[in-house]
């Protein structure tokens, strides 16, 4: 099957990733640990661009950038430098952003995603290093703002801006690309996606070969998909009216789910890029080999390993490796119980229950998962009981054994079930007759009655077997 792309959608993304696993900012020693701090408390003369200050590059930030480049299959530049991008806006008090221009640290890479028609390659044009500006808070909505408050704690944080080619053909592919990218970056241990504002996206989109628009202010992957769906609809409506899409920058209003035109008078040449005189060039080509050796296992490799090491199916391997926290969780569980059972319980059941509640794997402990799987595998509780324990832990807390006792979840076997089967058959002659008349469903009803009598603690499959045996023995 080949995806036809009926509207000729072309999407390219620019993703700003904060290297928030660094201890300090890009050009100064201010701590990056500001997320729960008062505004303007992680700021120094370099962050503020005060006269006489001198930026010095964080070596580890460069190493992280190269690590990212290698993971995205990029070429690493031999020698590079920083530039000043001049613009006057209060998020950067010095009047320019220190960034890279003609020699990005890495370029020409690719990422393979699950596309509309199977594996799909998204090319990476470049990724460069730059500093994050301060954070502006508009008092009221952006259109009716009464004033702006500024916090410079973020100013000077190390960013990597990753620029893709316009290779995504639907908002869904864009979202999958973002998910994959986030996952790779977390495997690389350069970035924590749970911190606010750690990944910000601008999207370029055109349809049917027309002019593109750039949508800014997208702060989540779901937001990216929504903004792009809206923008496709808007551009299609313009074409339907026989008009032309105007090349412009638009602002995504997350609350309303719409994009708004932002008039900008600045053009590329207005930024007057020039080499940053306060930072010397760097030659880093020789670092590549050493960094390559320390590159951790990446999601695709881990997925293949899960299949070969633990004998699980690909859908489970994919689900478990699509978030490093879940993959780590799984491997810890699998080291203590049967890995095949663990794969099913973690990827099918636990992940589903977490998603349903909008929770992450951090809400569940390895210990509890191990205990629950042991209880099922040893036949002490039913699968249904195990699901109930998981739900109970997520909703109300508690330990597996306490919940088992409290809810009476220990599996009942033998006499109690025998008795329940006999009773149900005696009490439901009509259902039995229906079954003899060929209504398979009646058997399900009878099994259901036994489950009811044993309050769900019997194993449905063995009840069914016992039921058939009993019918053969005493009712034929």
């Amino acid at each position, binding site marked *: 099957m080949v995806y036809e792309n009926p509207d000729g959608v072309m999407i390219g993304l620019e993703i700003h990733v904060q290297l928030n696993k660094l201890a300090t900012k890009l050009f100064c020693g201010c701590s990056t640990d500001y997320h729960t701090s008062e505004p303007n*408390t992680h700021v120094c003369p370099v962050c503020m661009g005060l006269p006489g200050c001198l930026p010095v590059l964080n070596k580890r930030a*460069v190493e992280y950038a190269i690590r990212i480049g290698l993971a995205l299959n990029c070429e690493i530049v031999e020698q590079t430098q920083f530039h000043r991008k001049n613009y006057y806006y209060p998020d950067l008090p010095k009047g320019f952003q220190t960034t890279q221009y003609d020699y990005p640290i890495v370029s020409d890479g690719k990422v393979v995603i699950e596309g509309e028609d199977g594996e799909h390659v998204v090319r990476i044009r470049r990724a460069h290093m730059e500093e994050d500006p301060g954070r502006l808070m508009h008092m009221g909505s952006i259109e009716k703002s009464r004033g702006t408050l500024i916090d410079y704690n973020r100013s000077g944080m190390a960013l990597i801006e990753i620029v893709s080619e316009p290779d995504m053909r639907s908002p869904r592919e864009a979202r999958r690309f973002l998910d994959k990218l986030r996952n790779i970056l977390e495997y690389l241990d350069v970035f924590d996606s749970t911190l606010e504002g750690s990944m910000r996206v601008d999207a370029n989109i055109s349809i049917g070969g027309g002019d593109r628009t750039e949508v800014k202010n997208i702060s989540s992957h779901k937001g990216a998909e929504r903004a792009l769906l809206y923008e496709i609809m808007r551009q299609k409506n313009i074409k339907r009216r026989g008009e032309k899409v105007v090349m412009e920058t638009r602002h995504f209003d997350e609350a309303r789910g719409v994009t708004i035109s932002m008039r900008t008078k600045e053009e590329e040449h207005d930024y007057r890029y020039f080499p940053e005189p306060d930072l010397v060039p760097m030659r880093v080509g020789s670092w590549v080999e050493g960094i390559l050796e320390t590159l951790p296992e990446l999601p695709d490799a881990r997925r293949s390993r899960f299949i070969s090491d633990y004998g699980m199916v690909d859908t489970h391997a994919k689900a478990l490796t699509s978030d490093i926290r879940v993959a780590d969780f799984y491997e810890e569980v699998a080291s203590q119980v049967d890995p095949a059972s663990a794969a099913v319980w973690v990827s099918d059941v636990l992940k589903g229950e977490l998603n349903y509640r909008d929770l992450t794997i951090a809400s569940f402990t390895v210990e509890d998962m191990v205990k629950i799987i042991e209880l099922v595998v040893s036949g002490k509780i039913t699968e249904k009981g195990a699901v109930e324990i998981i739900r109970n832990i997520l909703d109300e807390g508690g330990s597996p054994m306490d919940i088992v006792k409290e809810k009476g979840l220990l599996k009942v076997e033998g006499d109690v079930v025998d008795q329940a089967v006999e009773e149900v058959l005696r009490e439901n002659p009509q259902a039995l007759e229906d079954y003899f008349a060929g209504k398979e469903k009646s058997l399900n009803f009878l099994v259901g009655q036994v489950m009811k009598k044993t309050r769900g603690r019997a194993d449905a499959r063995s009840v069914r077997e016992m039921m058939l045996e009993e019918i053969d023995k005493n009712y034929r």
Partner: protein
Amino acid sequence: MITKEQVEHIGWLARVNIDEEDAFEFASELSTVLDYFGQLDEVDTSDVKPTYHVADVMNVFREDKPKDSLEQDDILANAEEIQEGYIKTPKII
């Protein structure tokens, strides 16, 4: 020759208001400056590599070790208006 419109545009980029009279004056002054620098174009530099930095230094880095930041009061001291630890500016879009 620099035009009055170019001066106004540069003023806008720097968020500086330039009135019409000044714009005319700056246009002619800036033209003189540019003409003066234009003399450099007469030198043949086709065999010369661009000099980005005068110092012949490469690879200057620091380790990823935190240092103390300034006190919040010191950061806010230069601001015209503050509110709950933030620097406040007029409305911007």
